[in-house]
């Protein structure tokens, strides 16, 4: 083959592209994404199952604050009766029951309450999953927010959440994702989330992440049976009530689970009995997924290199098939070296 202008240009371009590709690859940093850290000014909730009396004041407070409708799941039209989180319910109190149900906060023949709601993950799967930034974690306080005006309704967040929190509305042509946003509208007015505001026993307690961490440690250090003070609404509200300290299980739920959460739980029974997934890794699933994506697509380097190679191969192929400029991917079926 004689050196024509086109061949020369092609070879020159190919060489440059290959050199550039090698240079970029060599300088590519290892982009393993670690789990995100708790924000500096993180806020959250502490739910202490042993303090909860199952009055559901938090649920009605939540419905009122978020303008959510009642649910009738048992057909009696007497009470608001959500059985789980739903498109109309951001939080629900459920009860573990065993045997004779005589002993509060005991696994054997006992019962224990659990509050279901968004755990406001430190490194949320829903935020990582959302393709259109409708789910966001506020960088300052870590509240996981939802914006219906951005949402496309793909429900990847619903499927991805390890705690089954985001709920899609299947009964309307204009559905949204329903999920606790820690009463972001009340926070903006300097108020605390409605559930913590309404809780009469301080079972749901609002505070900064460090303040709640200190409170968790104080409670865990108490001797079971000794009289102890429990604050209502916020850690430093000064509105305390006295009660014998319970026997907590070792596990503080949300401390590390799936990368940690800003809503944490204390309980007297193991958390697998309280319908929370146990045995989750300390590393967030978002970190796993995004490490994979960054490795494959970081800076579009690998796809760029691959595309350069593929286009070059396709070009070479088109030139081998026939030497005129009219390359046609359909019309020369017997082209190619093998058919001479």
């Amino acid at each position, binding site marked *: 083959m004689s050196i024509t202008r086109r061949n020369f240009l092609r070879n020159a371009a190919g060489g440059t592209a290959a050199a550039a590709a090698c240079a970029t690859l060599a300088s590519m940093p290892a982009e393993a994404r670690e789990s995100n850290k708790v924000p500096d000014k993180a806020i959250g909730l502490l739910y202490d199952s042993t303090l909860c009396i199952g009055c559901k004041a938090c649920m009605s407070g939540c419905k009122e604050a978020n303008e959510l409708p009642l649910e009738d799941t048992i057909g009696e039209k007497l009470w608001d009766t959500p059985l*789980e*989180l739903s*498109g109309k319910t951001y939080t629900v109190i459920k009860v573990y029951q065993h045997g004779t149900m005589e002993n509060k906060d005991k696994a054997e023949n006992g019962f224990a309450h659990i509050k279901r709601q968004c755990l406001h993950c430190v490194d949320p*799967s829903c935020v990582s*999953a*959302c*393709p*259109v*930034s409708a789910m966001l974690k506020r960088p300052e306080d870590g509240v996981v927010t939802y914006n219906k005006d*951005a*949402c*496309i*309704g*793909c*429900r*990847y967040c619903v*499927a991805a959440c*390890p705690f*089954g929190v985001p709920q*899609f509305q*299947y*009964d*309307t*042509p*204009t*559905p949204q994702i329903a999920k606790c946003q820690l009463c972001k509208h009340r926070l903006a007015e300097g108020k605390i989330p409605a559930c913590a505001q309404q809780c009469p026993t301080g079972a749901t307690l609002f505070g900064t992440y460090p303040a709640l961490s200190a409170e968790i440690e104080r409670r865990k250090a108490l001797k079971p049976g000794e009289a102890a003070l429990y604050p209502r609404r916020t850690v430093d509200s000064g509105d305390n009530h006295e009660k014998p300290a319970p026997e907590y299980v070792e596990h503080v739920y949300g401390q590390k689970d*799936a990368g940690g959460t800003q809503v944490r739980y204390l309980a007297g029974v193991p958390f697998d009995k309280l*319908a929370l997934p146990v*045995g989750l*890794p300390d590393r967030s*699933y*978002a970190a*796993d*997924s*995004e490490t*994979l*994506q*960054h490795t494959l697509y970081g800076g579009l380097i690998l*796809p760029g290199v691959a*595309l350069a190679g*593929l*286009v070059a*191969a*396709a*070009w070479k*192929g*088109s030139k081998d*098939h026939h030497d005129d400029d*009219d*390359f046609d*991917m*359909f*019309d*020369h*079926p*017997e*082209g*190619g070296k*093998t*058919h001479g």
Partner: protein
Amino acid sequence: MVNHPIPSEVASRLRKNKAKASAIGGSLISPFTMVLGLLIVIAMYFLAQRFIYGLGAVTNINNGYPWGIWVVWDVVIATGFACGGYAMALVTYILNRGEYHHLVRPALTASLFGYSLGGLSVLIDLGRYWNFWHILSPSYAQTGSVMFEVAACISCYILVLWIEFSPAFLEHLGMKSAKKALNKFMFVFIGLGVLLPTMHQSSLGSLLVVFGYQIHPLWQTPLLPLLFLLTAVCMGFAIVILEATLAAVGFKRDIAEDLPMLSKIGKIIMGILAAYVVIRLGDLMVRGGIGKAFTSGIKSVMFLIEMAAFIYPIVVLSKPSNRRLLSKLLAASMSMLTGAVLYRIDAFLVAYDTGPGWHYFPSAPEMLVTIGVIAIEVLAYIIFVRKFPILPGHSTTAAAE
């Protein structure tokens, strides 16, 4: 050439080395196309309900199983079926094997419809479909999301498919100069047409990584993208074999000339599938999950059926004499496709467990919508090959030059 009928043997000898694509003509009205039309009307009825009352009025999806067959079949599996164009472009233009050339256009046609309808199915399934454009808008796009990668990439690929296909239209419309101009740059779109499916077919597997413990260990692995990619390429090749057979039967065409190519494709399928099985089982052994293949109830049963469906074609196609028989090629392809379909259903639905109390099985209306989408695809394919130069011209009624 004198314009009179030519005996078919003479015609085929004349065209021996000139299997130029041509429209096969014929009537569009037949009992088969009428049934397809009816299925489409039924699907439209339920789709109207979905848009008036919401997804729950038609589907059985729920907050434990937010993705049903409209995602798993209509998108994840249907785009796998539509990988014929990708697979053929890969061997023909990238590996530079010109002999496969005349299988490209029919494969690309099926890909065009498979992907275009997959894209439309997404709009049916999206709860807030009117916001769909956010995926392609830099102010909304969240590039860390696997869903973003899948959606953006599939959208681009649909566009590339139509561009790759446009010479057939331009030819039909007699726009020679436009066709010539476009063909000068076609190699760029061929490159993109191989890159984009490589990206999103693997990402369909990556979608599941963030689900973590919710996907059973027999399916959850960081190698999901590789496993999805390998099966997608195989699905593409298997579909080409199936398609060639169906076109031969449905349009009464002679398949003998295609057979040597199809048997080579069979060999490629065997190689890729063998790699897939070794990687999948090896990964399970390394991660210590292989025992779960026998101890996880229905999930184990599904896993074993899948493996059988993948291993059967490897065994059949490993014998060169089998690869020369259309029946064996077809059986192996069908088994491969069954395995790949099950792999996708299992990974997305059977292996998925969000906790006790949740169940999903598609409702009849939900299935009828999916069937209607398939009917649209088949009908469009029939119309296209009858009206546009898609299928290679040998042993058809098209006149020789």
